[in-house]
């Protein structure tokens, strides 16, 4: 953990460099959006960049890269349940994804109106 004076001093430059990298990745995200990629590719690129940025924040700013196993254990459980949370709802309407049919009764109006 970064508690030594020397360790913290060495980390200061890293904090600013990661901050700059995050700003650059934000620019890349906006630029990728201007390219008007096909939706599946746009989603993949946007989420890949977001995950990269989030990993940098977690590893460096939140010091997760050198944390104790109790923290890793708690987060591993969280990640597993998070993926379940993201995946299970899609199982309820997998048969109608991309067909423009509403999965649930209703949905007469498009989402923008």
């Amino acid at each position, binding site marked *: 953990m*970064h*508690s030594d*004076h020397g360790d*913290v*001093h060495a*980390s*200061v430059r890293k*904090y*600013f460099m*990661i*901050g700059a990298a*995050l*700003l650059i990745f*934000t620019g890349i*995200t*906006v630029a990728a*959006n201007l390219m008007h990629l096909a*939706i599946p590719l*746009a*989603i993949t690129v*946007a*989420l890949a*960049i*977001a995950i990269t*940025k*989030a990993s940098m*924040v*977690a590893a460096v*700013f*939140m010091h997760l890269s050198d944390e*104790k*196993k*109790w*923290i890793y254990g*708690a*987060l591993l*459980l*969280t990640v597993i*349940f*998070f993926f379940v*949370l*993201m995946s*299970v*709802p*899609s199982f*309820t*309407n997998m048969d*109608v*994804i991309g067909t*423009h049919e*509403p*999965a*649930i009764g209703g*949905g007469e109006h*498009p*989402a*923008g*109106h």
Partner: protein
Amino acid sequence: MNIPYTVEIRPDTGLANGKLGIWLFLASEVMLFGALFSTYIILRNGAAEWPHGELSVPLGAINTVILISSSVTMVMAWASLKLNDWAKHRLYLIATFVLAALFLVNKYFEYSDHLAKGEGPWHSTFLAIYFTLTGLHGLHIVGGMIVMAYFIGPGAKLWKANADQFANRIEYTGLYWHFVDLVWIFLFPVLYLL
């Protein structure tokens, strides 16, 4: 009565109690926002069409820059304490607070613009999930600002009484704040760009 292990490391976990506590809290926050992101997935998958261009990408990008910068100033506020530089700590913590306030000011203008056109959460499914996600995120920003204000104000005297405990509290505040930034890192592309 003193609360144990506020500074000393617990022999079983290898951590101070507050560190494990804040991470467990953040784990619960992941599930809270995860539920709303999951809702977004269901709503978008079930929609015949999904609107684009309703939100201001420049304003969203500026807010992203603001929050990333505030994460840098927040970690520097903690690092300054570890380097025993009280003046730098105050500067960085106040800068973090000001950046958070700037984020909320931008959010206010964004919300006002939509509401003035009658585009509230009732207007469409997209705006309903937009206001819910960004509204909950905004409340978390306010919560973080309250904690920062306490440590800028009356809480600062702990530095003289117990410097290590104060540094730990700033570290835990920082962990919360970086999480708030992390949520926005996903919110911005999901709502503004895709």
